[in-house]
């Protein structure tokens, strides 16, 4: 916040002299930043690998608009509508989280409880939506696609539907491999984020952090939660938009 450490004067000579926190943050928050950086490298590595294969097989890469067209309770096709909804849910839950952090700065226990509750709900909706997306990607379309392969020494034609780690109705199977791996990895991050949020939520209700005199624990979980949202912004662009 604006009343944060940056407004304190930083004296270069004494900053690193010991007896003070050179970065102006607590140990826990700094370690959270370092953890998030290592996690960011992991996700970047995965997305870069995806980018490599996508450039290599650019002419046989599925068009995202063909793959993600389903919308709940609607039989037609709307491209990208559901994933836009998912993105909005995650951004909204990020906002409720930052509002919980803000309430914590005012020592407003009731505010923290309310906003963290909405954050957890948003996270749960997102994980459920992702499961739904996977379901439709795995089951594919009614018409499917044809593949040819050699069985017992003769070429056989077979109609197949959807995608898994071996085949992909919409194009190169590597798209499906990366999709399952990266959105799966991200989805698991969201799932753990929801679990961590629930643990902290219980702590807030019990008054643990109020007694401690500060809600920094909420801030640290908040950092993780925003990071999950940050990763999704990139996944959304590279898997769905481009």
């Amino acid at each position, binding site marked *: 916040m*604006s009343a944060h450490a*940056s407004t*304190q004067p930083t004296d270069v000579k004494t900053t690193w002299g010991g007896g003070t926190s*050179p970065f102006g943050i607590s140990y826990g928050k700094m370690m959270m930043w370092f953890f998030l950086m290592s996690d960011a490298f992991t996700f970047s590595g995965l997305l870069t690998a995806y980018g490599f294969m996508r450039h290599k097989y650019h002419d046989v890469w599925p068009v995202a608009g063909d793959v993600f067209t389903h919308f709940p309770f609607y039989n037609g096709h709307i491209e990208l509508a559901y994933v836009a909804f998912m993105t909005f849910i995650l951004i909204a839950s990020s906002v409720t989280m930052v509002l919980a952090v*803000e309430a914590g700065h*005012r020592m407003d226990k009731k505010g923290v409880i309310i906003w963290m509750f909405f954050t957890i709900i948003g996270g749960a909706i997102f994980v459920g939506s992702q499961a739904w997306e996977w379901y439709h990607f795995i089951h594919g379309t009614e018409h499917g696609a044809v593949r040819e392969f050699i069985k017992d020494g003769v070429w056989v034609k077979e109609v197949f539907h959807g995608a898994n780690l071996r085949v992909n109705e919409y194009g190169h199977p590597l798209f499906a491999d990366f999709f399952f791996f990266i959105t799966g990895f991200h989805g698991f991050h969201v799932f753990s984020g929801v679990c961590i949020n629930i643990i902290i939520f219980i702590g807030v209700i019990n008054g643990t952090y109020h007694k401690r005199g500060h809600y920094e624990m909420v801030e640290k979980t908040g950092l993780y939660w925003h990071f999950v949202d940050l990763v999704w912004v990139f996944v959304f662009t590279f898997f769905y938009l481009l």
Partner: protein
Amino acid sequence: MERDDIYEYSLDTHHGEEEGKKVRKKIYQVLGILSAITIFEVGMGMKFSRVVSMQETLKYLFIALTLVKAAYIVLVFMHLGDERKNLRWIVLATYLVLIGYLLFICLTEAVYAGEHRAWDPVVEAFKSIVGGGSAHH
């Protein structure tokens, strides 16, 4: 022995009602910006994703908008913009240099690998699948 070099928590993490109002206003502003960008992106994607001549433009537009969104999340929601300069740059510079390098190397090599791809009937067969769904819309 009690250590005096570990801060239990950040200083200045509390603020009053007045300050809180300003902070909340900023948060809602950022929510508006992020939602607007996402809606704009999806709209552009729906309208132009199959227009071949637009694809290069769309690609760079989407990447630029994604970076704008990422900057808002990191600097405002994660408060990195309010942290001390040294922490801010240790996080940002390290990440940007390493990943910038990785991306440069991998994407350069990927284009080369794509141009020199060995002919493979299995891969060629995927060409008939790609874009197949659009015929049914």
